């Protein structure tokens, strides 16, 4: 009765199959089953945004998604952001603007930023702050993150 469920999904463009218990979150599956440890666990209750991934194009906190819910769906994690060996312009902008210190929140911020800029290439500062309100950072004070997003937006439009 307590058998694992087979889940078929697409992660960062690749077909992936995994077995998971219904009670396991997508975050646990990514980190513990698939060894994709780029996605971070922070609060584990949806407040901090460190575990942000996209699910069928929408950003979600993967701690509040069951692994079994990923059946037939497409996921993008931080591991799918870089273009081969080249960092994505958002990743470069975070580095160049020192938009991180301890780095735990960074994968979530970058996945969320990409979701924003893919849809809205030229957001206002207010819009950026509103969109990223579900991502908490206790190191930077946010200003450097906002600057990085603004720089990335410029470079992605160029």
């Amino acid at each position, binding site marked *: *009765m*307590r058998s694992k*469920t087979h889940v078929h999904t697409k992660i960062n463009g690749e077909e992936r199959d995994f077995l998971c*218990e*219904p*009670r*396991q*979150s997508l975050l646990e599956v990514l980190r513990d089953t698939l060894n994709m440890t780029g996605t971070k666990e922070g609060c*584990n*209750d*949806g*407040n901090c*945004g460190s575990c*942000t991934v996209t*699910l069928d194009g*929408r*950003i*979600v*906190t993967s*701690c*509040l*998604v*069951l692994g*079994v*819910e990923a*059946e037939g769906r497409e996921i993008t994690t931080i591991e799918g952001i870089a273009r081969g060996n080249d960092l994505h312009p958002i990743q470069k902008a975070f580095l160049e603007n020192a938009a991180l210190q301890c780095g735990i929140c960074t994968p979530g911020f970058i996945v*969320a930023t990409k*979701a924003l800029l893919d849809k809205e290439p030229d957001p206002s500062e207010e819009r950026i702050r*509103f*969109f990223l*309100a*579900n*991502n908490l950072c206790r190191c930077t004070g946010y200003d450097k993150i906002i600057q990085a997003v603004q720089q990335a937006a410029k470079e992605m439009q160029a």
Partner: protein
Amino acid sequence: MKWFDYQAPTTLANTLALFDSHPGAYLLAGGTDLLVQLRAGRKQTDLVLDIKHVAELNEISFDVADGLTLGAAVSCAQTYENAAVKTHHPSLAEVASIIGGIQIQGRASIGGNLCNAAPSADAIPLLIALSAKCRVASSKGERQIAVEDFCIAPGKNAMLPGEILVSLHLPAPKKGSGASYLRFTPRNEMDIAVAGVGASIVLEGGVFKHARIALASVAPRPLFVPVAGDSLIGKPVNVESIEAAAELAKGAATPITDMRGTVEYRRHLCAVLTKRALEAAVKQAQEAK
């Protein structure tokens, strides 16, 4: 989280049959309340029923006769991105965009916000103001519950064992109508209302023809205040009529003192927010002409 089984039925009939035979099951829509509660041990179950694959629970449609049908599992993001919602119920689009952050909005549903029955739920006072009705179904049949009767205590709703919320139904807005939900939170986003007010009005010839007001976070359940809305009917649109209604809303509030605010503070907020919500609704009604 403790072990549970998971099933994702694809028809309403199957969902109701499963729920009937597993009275302890919990329904999963966006999971932004349920998974937190299961993980914290505040809820326990042997079975989680994922209801997101049932067509009726994903419906989002509008027509002039029937108004808006909003499936119980439709996410906040799907709600505020929907063209008909934006056109006919901009206040609902607005409230869907202030519940949680973007990550939560992609999962959390308005129906779930209602079923979770938190006194502080942002969507519920607005749904009450907009005269929403709940379509509730079980394997034995269906019934309708007015939204103002749906929440009965903190975290408790009026559904009986085996019943599920299928959809919400909002009448099409009449000519000269406007609605607004306003809340006070220390942080602009991702915060829980210290107090919130939903207001809906219909104007005719500069006079209030219809008005409904409901409050969040100031009673054990979202609080419908008919006396405040009724006080406006037949009155001209002016500061006196609006302030009188705001005082009545304040008088109906029975808040508690907690970490988010004191009784006095919350009662004061009820008056301020009711006035502003009515003013916003009036502005919307006048601009729509």
